[in-house]
């Protein structure tokens, strides 16, 4: 556990010093929000229907930006060698990376939501609090697969370009259920109404955290 924590701490400290992940992800989200509002021509009726989808499009695109840096950073100066030389199971490296990335992506998600509320004048009913677990579960599944593919993509010729191509078809179930659940919350309905979507989201997280942790050791390599 202390080994996992060491990796998480390393990532957080790096991020706090450089702040490059947060600035790029947040600036990107802001830009996408602006583009969406221009594209929809400021018509609130249309926006209201599209908000859950827009939220997750922004979120995943920003998330991919962050994830592709995750291992590109390790490759610079061959820092990944240091990771590999640590006397620990490879899956622990995976869990450290996943937890670190989830924290980043989750925080970005938590900033996107109020940004959306503000810019699209969402007069939502009730509370947005149920959105927190949805974004958390969404981040977790997204990062679980994304971290694995990020480690893979940096070692290919196409590099970061390959990451979204690999990742997006796989996370379709996650996006579908997250959009469904977010839609319910924004309409002021309880999450229990989308029980099957919630089950799907949780199943996605469990299946892919387990599977990716097992295959991660085949993917990570030096330079």
């Amino acid at each position, binding site marked *: 556990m202390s080994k996992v924590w060491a990796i998480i701490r390393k990532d957080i400290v790096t991020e706090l010093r450089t702040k490059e992940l947060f600035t790029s992800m947040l600036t990107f989200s802001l830009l996408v929000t602006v583009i969406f509002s221009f594209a929809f021509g400021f018509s609130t009726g249309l926006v209201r229907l599209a908000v859950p989808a827009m939220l997750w499009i922004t979120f995943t695109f920003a998330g991919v930006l962050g994830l592709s840096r995750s291992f590109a950073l390790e490759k610079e100066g061959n820092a990944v060698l240091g990771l590999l030389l640590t006397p620990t199971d490879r899956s622990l490296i995976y869990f450290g990376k996943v937890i670190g990335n989830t924290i980043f992506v989750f925080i970005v998600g938590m900033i996107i939501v109020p940004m959306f509320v503000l810019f699209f004048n969402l007069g939502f009913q009730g509370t947005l609090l149920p959105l927190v677990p949805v974004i958390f579960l969404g981040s977790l599944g997204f990062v679980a697969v994304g971290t694995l593919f990020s480690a893979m993509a940096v070692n290919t010729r196409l590099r970061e370009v390959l990451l979204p191509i690999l990742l997006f078809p*796989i996370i379709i179930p996650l996006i579908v259920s997250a959009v*469904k659940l977010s839609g319910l919350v924004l309409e002021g309905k309880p999450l229990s109404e989308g029980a099957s979507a919630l089950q*799907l989201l949780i199943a996605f997280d469990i299946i892919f955290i387990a599977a990716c942790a097992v295959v991660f050791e085949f993917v990570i390599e030096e330079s």
Partner: protein
Amino acid sequence: MRKALAVLTFILMAASLYAAFVYAPTEPKMGHIQRIFYIHMGTVWVATVAFILVFASSVMYLWKGTRKWDILAYCSAEIGVVFLTITILTGSIWAKPVWGTWWTWEPQLTTTFILWILYIVYLVLRSSAGSDQKKAKFAAVFGIIAFLDLPLVYASVRVMRGISPVVFGPGGGGIAPQMMHALLINLAACSLLFVLLLLERTDLERMSDELAVLKTREG
């Protein structure tokens, strides 16, 4: 042996065409267009088998690390994509007169479409991975993850549309025995074609391996 298989495949393919176009009765509601279903089912069956094979050999590759499993996974994925493309095309041709549209986001179609994309991505990944070993490892990992994703994709499409699964095939239940025969012959013919293509394709891959070895030896 291989030649005998090729001849047998040819005979069965010819028989399946005869069965589909002449032997099977015309479906009363849909008319002649229903006949495309025989080849449609045959190709989708082969694609399913091919992708299961990709998954199984990916697991075997990560476990054993031998090149033969990688070859099997790669060739199987390639053929699977070709057959699934035919499935989607024939389905689309069938849907135009029957449903009045080339394409609709119906659960089965959507799942098939995503399946198709997943294995195209698998091939893209292979072509961009670089060294042979890296290619094999990454592809095996993706092959496993993609396969695990499929049931979730199917569930998610149902969640999205909020509909229960539909009965697949012409008219649902009860079809004429001749139709059943035609279908079975088509399934057999497509399966044999798959085996034949797979044998040829894996041979080709092995030969190109040998050639690479010879080239490095000669300098």
